Every structure is written in structure tokens, then in C-alpha cells.
């Protein structure tokens, strides 16, 4: 064994400065647990918190060593139940993302509305469970650190570590070239990163630290459980006059994260009166964090379930109800959409699905022992973009190198950016190579919020465009007329081995448009009439996400999102023992995600959009919109099949017996 570090002997670290919002932009530090410096004192905030690290020459020795550490506890009462502590719910929003919004007088309009739905919906704790567990290798040479970290936010890791360890950011080299999944859980600097870097500095050797699967259920974020009230008021013709969406989710004292489940409510359906608020209930439990489609996936389950309930109350087809309440402008801000093809999504997916063959009565469709049900829901996710830079270099042999910090978590960043550069320069894709996942490369934002394609894409597009201009300028010709076949000849003529440009892409300060990706899901479920386990037979989803850079990777994002949505609807939940304050099903045997036979027929329709406003390359994010709404569509299909409305996820057999 080489060292045991804990609050007893750990070096004191600086508290990093933090910026609001947690997006981890250019200069922000991004310690996930803002109010807690690992090993800074003997306080245990939640069960599972790292309290010591053992460093040894082999993994086996370290694991054995850790088992021999003796801890004495001074127990204090802990708050662990969301339900019991509901009264302490409070708004924990930031300026950039406030916890509440309002337009008109939603309560008065609801009170006098002829048609009403007013229900409570619940979503459970869920964990990201990327296949590749979080882990790192940290190696110090004097005041210089090389850090291989499985991260979707390398520049923020550099910034945070720089501030905490008091070394300049230039001394820190963070690499994250291949990532085996992240889904939001690797967007912040979790305690193990700080601990691993600290350990390497103390033992003066490179240190490898892997978080175990079980630990991942406690120390690297989860989707907090929520309880949401949705109240919809409508006229007899189904037109909404009021939307109220309020409630709370679990939060804690060390982290600012709150599940912002009202985010989509501001955007998706039109109503003259609306208000929403999401509050946090601070419990002595692990920290919540961003998990694929944070806020939108949980909130839209509630909102689109309520819309379905309203459709039955109003005796209007659920799809028709959505069309009646289609928002022609951003309902809250009144801004024009940069582009919106939600109606096309509804139309194409409904047609392909055969929605018109659905008989409206619940329990009216059967297939042998199975009750059959069809349901639908809408999807939405804002198109974010953040500043990003890229360099483009051409060599005299005609090969091109694109370099940009960025991340590829498996979603195809490398492929799509290479393609975009090749297209912009009009050269064969085989000649283009890209390097990413390295803080020595130009800076890019966190790979989250479905914004990599838009942000990094705008930078790569800009760099490739500038490169073309620079080559044209050598000969003083118009770049538009420069024949790509002559690039190498131009370079040689000017005795240049290579030529390079950097482009810094920035979104406008004030955006006159509201930009969102939209989509629609249509789902068919089968529920055995006696043994009511739900199986999803068929999903047809359509997404409009601006320009589709690569149909294959876009479709994969669509399929992945639907699969996750099926898991969210029927399987995923981390059980919490409130007496112990511990999650219990903390392994892949008992934390259920869909397996092959759970996934039957999935169809993804990509509705092409020409969006001249959203960003220079016209793309919106599609990484998350695909899972928003799936759970609601399935819950609605289950109601149609069985006549039972399940308002609490996941929809397991006991809720239908």
C-alpha cells in the first residue's frame, strides 16, 4: 500500500469559483458538488460519499486495503424521504435557468375553465449507468498534470482542477478521446476526479482510479425522483386556457441541481395563461444531476399524460387535441420559431403508424389474450449552442486535419465533423482526419444539452470555410469558384507545406428566434389481460432537428432515445430504502434497462428542415429530443389498452393488476 488519504491527512484544496447554470462554458468551473470539497472535513452528507482513498501498487492490494480501513461514525438523523419532507420544497433556480415562470393568470383561468384535468404524476430515481464506468489516470510531473479522464467536459475539468490545486490551467493537460457513454453523468467534476488527482500528487506516481459499478449508484449523479402536479383548463372545443405545472424533486445540500421538469411546458402547447415551478427538497441523499433530456423527459411524461386525460375528458382524439393547441410562436416569450416542423412530425408519424385505425374507446382493441393500446405524445428539446473553436489545416498532399477540443461519447462526433469539413472544403472524406478530446486543442463547450453538433459544427464549418478562403486568397481568386482539385497545386505554387486557420464560432448575444427540435411518438403496446406486464410492440417517431448532417448517426440517436424512453416507461427505477438512506438495486442484475426482446419494431422518421436562423449550419440537437415524450406515449397507450391510468413511473405489473 502506498497511501491512505482522508480528511485526516488530505492536503487543503481551494474552492473553485463557480458560474451559474452549470453548463461549464469557457471559464466556468464545474465541481458537481459545489458546496463540498472532497476530504475537506469529516462531515458525511450522504450514504456512499467517498471518505477515503487507498492507493496501492495493484488494484487487489488497494481493494483489500480499503476493506481494512476502520471508520468511526457519529450518527445524526438524516432526511431521506421526499414525501415526508415535501413541506421543505424550495426554489433553487439560477438567474439563467429560473425555477419558475408565469404568463397571464393561470389559476383564475383554470378555476373558470369548462374542462379540467388536475392530477399528480411521479417519476422515480434513475441512474445513467454508462457502460464505461467513470475513471481516470492522473500523472504529475512537478506542477504539470496529465489527466486522462472519462469526461464530457474536458475544459471545465482543466479549469476546476487548476483552481482547486492552485496551478495554472496551461499546466494541465486533460485527455478524453474515447468515452464509453456518459449521458450527462460525466459533465461535471465529481469528487473522484479531485481525489484521483490529489492521490497522484501525494504518492508522486501516476494513479489510476476507477469508480466501481456499485459506487456509481451513489457518487456520480442520478435523475432525482419528482412529484409533479399538472392542471390543465380548456374550453369545450379543447383549446387550452390554462396550464399549471408545479412540484418538486429531490435535491441536496452539497449540489445545486434540481430536476427542471417544467422546461418543456413553457414551449410545447399554446395557452394564454400558464405557470410553472419546480422546487427542490434537500435530502441527505446523493446528488442529482443532468441525465439525458433532464427536465424534459420527466416533465413531458406528466404533461403529455395530462393532455391524454384531457383528450378523453373532451372526447377529442389525442392527436387532434395537440393540433388544436399547437404553438405557432414560442408561447412564453412570443418569439418566432427559427423553424418548426412539429405538424409534419405528427402527420408523417401518424400516417406511418396507422393512427387512424385506432378505435378511441379504452379496452376496445384486442389480439388474443392481449389488450392492445395506442398512444402518442410530443417531443421537444431546446437547441442550445455555445462558443466553440476549431482549427483546419491542409497539407500540400491534399490531406486535411481538423482539430477541436470536443468529445465523442459514441454519438458520432468524429464521423459527422469529418463529413462536414469534407463537404465544406469539397474534398473526398478519406482525406480528412479529425483530432478531438484534448485540452491542447481549440476550446469547445461541454458535450451536453444536444449541442455538440451545433456548437462544434459551427466552428468546424467556419474553420473549413476560412481555410478555403485563405487558399483562394493566395491566388486572389473567389473562393466560390476555386476548384478543389487545384488546392494542392495552389499550395505548391506558393511553396507552402501546409496552411492552417482557426475559427471561433460564437452564438449571438440576443437571439430574436426561439429554437427547438420537435418530434412526435406513436406507440402500440400489448398488455396481457390477466398478467398485465406491458410490452411495447411498435414505436413510430418523427423528429425535426434542422439539417441532418448524417442520417445514420441521427437515426441511431433516435433509436437510442426511444429505447431509453421504453426503459423509463416500464423498467428503470432505483429503489431507495429511506430508513438506511440507501439505494438498494445497485447493480446491472437488478437495475433494469431494456434488453433485446423488450425492443420490437422501431421506426425513426427524420423530417428535414431548412433553418436559416438557428446557426450557420442549420442544425438543431437531436441527441435528447428522441427520448422526450416516449414515456408519456407509452403511459397513454397503456391507458388505451387497459382503461387504467398509471401516473407513476415505471409502469410495472402491480400497478395494473
Amino acid at each position, binding site marked *: 500500500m502506498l497511501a491512505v488519504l482522508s480528511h485526516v491527512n488530505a492536503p487543503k484544496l481551494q474552492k473553485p469559483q463557480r458560474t451559474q447554470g452549470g453548463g461549464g462554458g469557457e471559464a466556468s468551473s464545474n465541481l458537481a458538488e459545489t458546496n463540498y470539497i472532497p476530504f475537506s472535513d469529516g462531515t458525511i452528507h450522504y450514504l456512499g460519499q467517498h471518505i477515503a482513498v487507498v492507493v496501492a501498487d495493484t488494484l*487487489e492490494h488497494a*481493494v*483489500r486495503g480499503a*476493506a481494512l480501513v476502520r471508520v468511526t461514525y457519529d450518527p445524526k438523523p438524516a432526511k431521506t424521504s421526499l414525501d415526508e419532507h415535501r413541506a421543505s420544497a424550495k426554489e433553487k433556480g439560477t438567474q439563467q435557468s429560473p425555477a419558475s415562470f408565469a404568463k397571464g393568470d393561470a389559476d383564475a383561468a383554470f378555476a373558470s375553465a369548462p374542462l379540467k384535468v388536475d392530477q399528480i404524476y411521479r417519476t422515480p430515481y434513475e441512474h445513467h449507468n454508462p457502460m464505461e464506468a467513470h475513471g481516470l489516470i492522473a500523472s504529475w510531473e512537478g506542477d504539470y498534470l496529465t489527466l486522462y479522464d472519462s469526461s464530457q467536459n474536458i475544459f471545465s475539468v482543466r479549469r476546476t482542477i487548476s483552481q482547486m490545486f492552485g496551478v495554472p490551467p496551461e499546466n494541465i493537460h486533460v485527455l478524453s478521446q474515447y468515452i464509453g457513454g456518459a449521458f450527462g453523468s460525466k459533465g461535471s467534476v465529481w469528487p473522484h476526479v479531485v481525489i484521483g488527482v490529489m492521490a497522484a500528487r501525494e504518492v508522486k506516481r501516476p494513479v489510476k482510479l476507477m469508480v466501481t459499478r*456499485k459506487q456509481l449508484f451513489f457518487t456520480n449523479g442520478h435523475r432525482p425522483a419528482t412529484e409533479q402536479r399538472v392542471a390543465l383548463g380548456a374550453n369545450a372545443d379543447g383549446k387550452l386556457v390554462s396550464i399549471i405545472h408545479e412540484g418538486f424533486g429531490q435535491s441536496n445540500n452539497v449540489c445545486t441541481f434540481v430536476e427542471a421538469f417544467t422546461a418543456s411546458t413553457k414551449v410545447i402547447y399554446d395557452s394564454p395563461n400558464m405557470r410553472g415551478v419546480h422546487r427542490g427538497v434537500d435530502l441527505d441523499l446523493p446528488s442529482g444531476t443532468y441525465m439525458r433530456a433532464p427536465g424534459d423527459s420527466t416533465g413531458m411524461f406528466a404533461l403529455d399524460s395530462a393532455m391524454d386525460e384531457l383528450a378523453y375528458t373532451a372526447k377529442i382524439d389525442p392527436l387532434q387535441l395537440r393540433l388544436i393547441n399547437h404553438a405557432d410562436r414560442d408561447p412564453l416569450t412570443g418569439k418566432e420559431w427559427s423553424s418548426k416542423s412539429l405538424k409534419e412530425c405528427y402527420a408523417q408519424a401518424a400516417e406511418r403508424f396507422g393512427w387512424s385505425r385506432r378505435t378511441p374507446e379504452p379496452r376496445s382493441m384486442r389480439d388474443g389474450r392481449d389488450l392492445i393500446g395506442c398512444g402518442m405524445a410530443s417531443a421537444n428539446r431546446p437547441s442550445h449552442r455555445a462558443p466553440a473553436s476549431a482549427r483546419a489545416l491542409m497539407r500540400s498532399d491534399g490531406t486535411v486535419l481538423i482539430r477541436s477540443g470536443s468529445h465523442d461519447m459514441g454519438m458520432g462526433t468524429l464521423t459527422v465533423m469529418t463529413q462536414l469539413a469534407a463537404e465544406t472544403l469539397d474534398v473526398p472524406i478519406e482525406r480528412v482526419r479529425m483530432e478531438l478530446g484534448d485540452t491542447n486543442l481549440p476550446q469547445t463547450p461541454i458535450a451536453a444539452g444536444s449541442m455538440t453538433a451545433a456548437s462544434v459544427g459551427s466552428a468546424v464549418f467556419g474553420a473549413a470555410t476560412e481555410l478555403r478562403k485563405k487558399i483562394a486568397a493566395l491566388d486572389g481568386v473567389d473562393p466560390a469558384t476555386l476548384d478543389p482539385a487545384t488546392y494542392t497545386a495552389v499550395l505548391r505554387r506558393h511553396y507552402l507545406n501546409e496552411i492552417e486557420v482557426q475559427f471561433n464560432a460564437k452564438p449571438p448575444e440576443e437571439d430574436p428566434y426561439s429554437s427547438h427540435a420537435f418530434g412526435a411518438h406513436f406507440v402500440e403496446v400489448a398488455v396481457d389481460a*390477466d*398478467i398485465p*406486464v406491458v*410490452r411495447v410492440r411498435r414505436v413510430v417517431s418523427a423528429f425535426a432537428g434542422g439539417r441532418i448532417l448524417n442520417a445514420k448517426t441521427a437515426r441511431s440517436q433516435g433509436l437510442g432515445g426511444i429505447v431509453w424512453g421504453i426503459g423509463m416507461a*416500464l*423498467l428503470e427505477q432505483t*429503489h*431507495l*430504502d429511506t*430508513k*438506511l438512506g*440507501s439505494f*438498494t*438495486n*445497485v*447493480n446491472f*442484475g*437488478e437495475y*433494469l434497462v*431494456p*434488453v*433485446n*426482446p*423488450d425492443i420490437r419494431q422501431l421506426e425513426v422518421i427524420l423530417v428535414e428542415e431548412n433553418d436559416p436562423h438557428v446557426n450557420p449550419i442549420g442544425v438543431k440537437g437531436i441527441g435528447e429530443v428522441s427520448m422526450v415524450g416516449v414515456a408519456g406515449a407509452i403511459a397513454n397507450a397503456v391507458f388505451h389498452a387497459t382503461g387504467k391510468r398509471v401516473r407513476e413511473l*415505471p409502469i*410495472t*405489473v*402491480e400497478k395494473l*393488476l
Partner: protein
Amino acid sequence: MNPFDYVRVESATAAITSGSRAGAKFIAGGTNLVDLMKCDVERPLHVVDINALPLAAIERVSGGIRIDALAKMSDVASHPLVTRDFPAISQALLASASPQLRNAASIGGNLMQRTRCPYFRELTFAPCNKREPGSGCSAIDGENRTHAILGTSDACIATHPSDLAVAVAALDGVLTIRSANGERKVAATDFHLIPGRTPHLEHDLRHGELITSLFLPDAAHAQHSAYLKIRDRAAYEFALTAAAAGLDISGGIIRSARVALGGVGTKPWRARAAEGVLSGQRPSAELFRAAADAELQAAKPHEQNKFKVELVKRTLVRALTDLAGGVA
């Protein structure tokens, strides 16, 4: 994990000698033992690898078939002697775990696998009478959705996890167990124990004893048997509820019935009360329901697993209905 030594043995005698040392454990496929060692629940000092023993055959013997303890789950599931004469066994195996696990895991290890109760396996800081006798049971008023409703005690409500064991219990399997003193035979239904006040004692196998084979007796109800498993996801999950059933129906009358339930018992639950209701009767929906009701009278559900009472009844009724050719 704790330090241990490892020895590979080539004969049953050597296995028993090695396995009789204090702190010794046999390892077959390792799919349960290694997991539990990583969780710090099993802490063997000596790991005795029995994979080299010549104990992997599946053979017809007088009055039935013999499946050796080291036969792989996948090999047994697809063996013609099993699929033809004991379909419930094959179906139970195919509904278990995943193809990779079934390729690695043995029949002996399967019958010996330990509960999936999270307080036993994962949350080793929490009280658990099975792991630490006398410490208490965290599940009784904790997270108990997956726990047992039959054969429970105030000390433990953990479910026996094996699917195979349920089918074996239904079809009157007999285990051959070997020790330094020779061989003995134990009916599968007597092999696993209910927890009572001693949940840490799970089976009738003394330290150092080796399971060498499983015998399944031929019977008409065995040939006409099935295994139905209900779970949240379509594969790769332990049973919420399960039913193994065999019916010998002739002349419109149930001549013999065999029933066992899974996912609901602290041991593989042979349902003799249900069998009593079924025997000698004409199959009907009412009869099947009456059989299920009779067996579940003794059920003792807890906060989160109340649904299992009704679900397992419906599971059994469905299994019987399908076996009887859809009478219900």
C-alpha cells in the same frame, strides 16, 4: 475481496478432501461465487476448482435421467432427453440468466446459488440475518418488492432465486451427494430449507460435501410439463413469479399433478396443497383457480410484494390452462 488460495482438483475424492478444509468453497462456473466474493459476502480461504471432475454427463438411467452436477445450464436446456421428457426443466433453464451465463454456469452451482436480496448481497453495512445471524432483517420493513410470500419467517423473507430448482422441485428430482463417508440421496424438496430462525442455513449440504448429480424420475406429468416465468423485462431477470407444472390428463381427468412456484418462496416452493386440489379432477378454470387459492392461503406478503399473491395465482392458472390445452 479477501486473500484466498486456489486449487484445481481432478477427482471427487480430492475435491472432498480439499473442500473439507475449514474455509474451503467449491467453484464451478463461478458466476455466483465470484460475484459474492467481490461483494465481500463470501470469504473463502480456499477456492477448490471442480471443473476438471468428470461430472458433466446427461444420461438415461433406469427410471429416469441423470444430470451430472457440472453439466452446463445451456447443455442441459437443449439436451433431447430433457426437452422431450422434462420440458419444464429445459424451459426453466432457458428463462434463466443470459446465454453467456448459461454457458458458464453448472447445475450444481445453480441449485446452490444464493438469494438476490440486496441487503444480503450489496448493502453489506445493513443488518441481515442471513449474512450475519442475529443482526436483524432489513427487508421486512424495507425494500421488499422482490421478496418471498411463502415460507417466510420473522428472521428472513429472502426469495430463493433459482428457476431450475423450482422445476426440479415440481418433478421430484433427487440429488446425489458425496462425502468422505460415501454417497447419500436427498429429495430436492428436502434439500433447500426454509429460513425459520436460522436463515443462514440454506440447504442440507454439510461442509465438504459435493453434489455429484441430479436424478429426474420419468413420469407422464413430467413429459407434459411446463415452466412459466413472469418478470418486468422480457429476459435476463429473476422471476417476479413463476410456476412449474406437470399434468397427466387422461380420459378428461387429471391423474397426477405436479406444481411448484418460483419467485414467491424462501425455497423452491412445491405446491402440494394445489396438487391436492387438482388430482382426480376434471380440468377447468374454476379448478385451477381453486388450486392456486389453496396454495396461497398461507401467503404472508409485505408492504411492497402484496401483488405477488394475485400475480402468482394468475401465473399458475395460466400455466395449468396452457398445459390442459386451454380449458379456461
